[in-house]
């Protein structure tokens, strides 16, 4: 190792230290304690092997929460992905009002859930606006309680799309702006229509953006808990009973045992999912060991 490299390592260490120490103190080290607790009995003395994991795995609420969370993510992320991409292409090709449309669609990102929730109640409550519209269209009385029934899932999906389309839109637009005009010209000369341009120019060029969009969509999908909590409280309809609900119930009863065990299972699960994700991204990009954030 030459001197330059050694000096670089020292600087890297110094630059990274403030962040790394805090992350270790608040996340990594206590997680070690969490792992330890997941193998001990409730009083924290005796080693019980995999018993806690069996209990949590057999727990009906845990299974329901995991299933619902996965179902929500599988439903909502592809829809958001396609919808926001479509809108961003529309904005990119519109001649007037690009800025206005962009600001309009991005605005929901910055609206706090607590501030807008009353409007959601106006729209979705039993006497609310949507029931009135549906009654008007179908000529019969609708008094569906949107938030406290099977439809709660739909309400959350709509909320998630309303809030997060702008986020992904910004990412897509950034990707689109980096595509040189000459590529479109070349495609057009070859006789490509707008669909073919999307297929052969836009999608391949946006590969780098796709990974980021996916990751941020996943991160944001857990934040929908805020709306779920504000609309339906901590005991919502079973169709939207998700992991955050489960953890907050265990937290209230201070069931550290179960929380630790479930946290370990979820971290392992997320780690595996991330490994698969990285493998796929690496496969797409044919990277040769070069470092990249993805």
């Amino acid at each position, binding site marked *: 190792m030459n001197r330059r490299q050694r*000096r*670089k390592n020292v600087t890297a*260490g110094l*630059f990274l230290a*403030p962040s*790394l120490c*805090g*992350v270790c103190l608040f*996340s990594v080290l*206590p*997680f070690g*304690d*969490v792992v330890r607790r997941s193998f001990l009995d409730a009083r924290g003395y005796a080693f019980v092997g995999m018993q806690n994991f069996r209990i949590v795995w057999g727990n009906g609420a845990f299974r329901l929460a995991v299933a619902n969370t996965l179902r929500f993510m599988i439903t909502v992320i592809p829809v958001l992905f396609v919808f926001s991409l479509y*809108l961003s292409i529309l904005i*990119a*090709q519109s*001649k007037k009002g*690009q800025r*206005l*449309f962009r*600001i309009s*669609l991005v*605005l929901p*990102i910055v*609206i*706090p*859930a*607590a*501030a*807008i929730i*009353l*409007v*959601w109640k*106006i729209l979705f*409550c*039993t*006497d609310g606006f949507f029931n*009135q519209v549906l009654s008007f269209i179908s000529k019969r009385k609708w008094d569906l309680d949107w938030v406290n029934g099977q439809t709660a899932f739909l309400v959350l999906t709509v909320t998630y799309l309303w809030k997060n389309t702008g986020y992904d839109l*910004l*990412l897509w*637009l*950034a*990707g*689109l*702006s980096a595509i040189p*005009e000459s590529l*479109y010209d070349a495609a057009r000369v070859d006789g490509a229509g*707008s669909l073919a341009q999307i297929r052969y120019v836009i999608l391949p060029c946006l590969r*780098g953006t796709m990974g980021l969009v996916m990751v941020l969509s996943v991160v944001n999908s857990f934040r929908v808990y*805020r709306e779920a909590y504000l609309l339906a409280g901590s005991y919502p309809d079973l169709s939207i009973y998700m*992991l*955050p609900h489960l953890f*907050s119930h265990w*937290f209230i009863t201070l069931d550290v045992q179960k*929380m630790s065990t479930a*946290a370990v299972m*979820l*971290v392992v699960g997320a780690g595996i999912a991330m490994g698969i994700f990285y493998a796929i991204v690496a496969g797409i990009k044919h990277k040769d060991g070069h*470092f990249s*954030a993805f």
Partner: protein
Amino acid sequence: MKEFYPYKNKQRKNRFLSVGTFILMVSAFLVWFPLLLMVAASLMPEDELLWRYLSPLGIAKAPVRISLLPSYPSCEAFIELLLRSPGFFVMFWNSCIQVFPMLLGQLFVGTPAAWTFARLDFPGRQWLFRLYVLLMVLPFQVTQVSNYLVLDQMNLLNSHLSLILPGIWSTFPVFIMTRSFEAAPKALLEAAYLDGAGEVRAFFLVGIPTGYPGIVTALVLGFIDAWNTLEQPIAYLKDMQLWPLSLYLPDIVQDKAAVAFAAGIVMMIPPVLLYLNGEGKLEQGIASSGVKE
């Protein structure tokens, strides 16, 4: 910002209103509709509010009568809220105390770390960065157990610090800034090294200026998220005196239904202004973090 998307569809040039524009207008309307309902409601006097929105306010059951304009616009609710609701001010101030020191901390701790991940080669970099991404992806509730155990040990529960400290070491800003530092031009950096700049000087002279939009983006997104937070205060703050606005707002309906909409508007103002001000930087920042060769 100028129009910079070269993708133009030339076949549809002559149509008066294309399908695309129509869809965009519908989407924009769907965004504006709830916001306008909210603004209108905040400008209604109490009796009109009660006539229109008894049911959503949870007072009694009656069909809602929506309106995008108040019949008799008045600032009654805002005056009541700003002059005669001391509780609201306490919570607003709490939000500020919890959010701004946290952002400052994220800036000081996160920027050098992001620069290191983006620009310095050291053993284990990739794995360390993956750890940061994993921590970013995990929902709060999963890391909550670990956080809670530490905060309990440090005796910080039920204090502003229980929100500020873990927030400073959130890995999300590091992630965003790393992406944007990576996009900084290599040539500039090499020029700085050739001129004899050390790593620290290169960071301040090249890193900060080129990564500036990314730093702003991380801070804006951090602000929005922290201003909006619910999970942490629910879990850590038992004492209502410490609650941030985001947690107090749903309760205000029970106290003073008439000011609930106005309170929502006041809460929205800081993030909306921040976004409209930093819009250009935000887009540059997201652009540099989203686009990679």
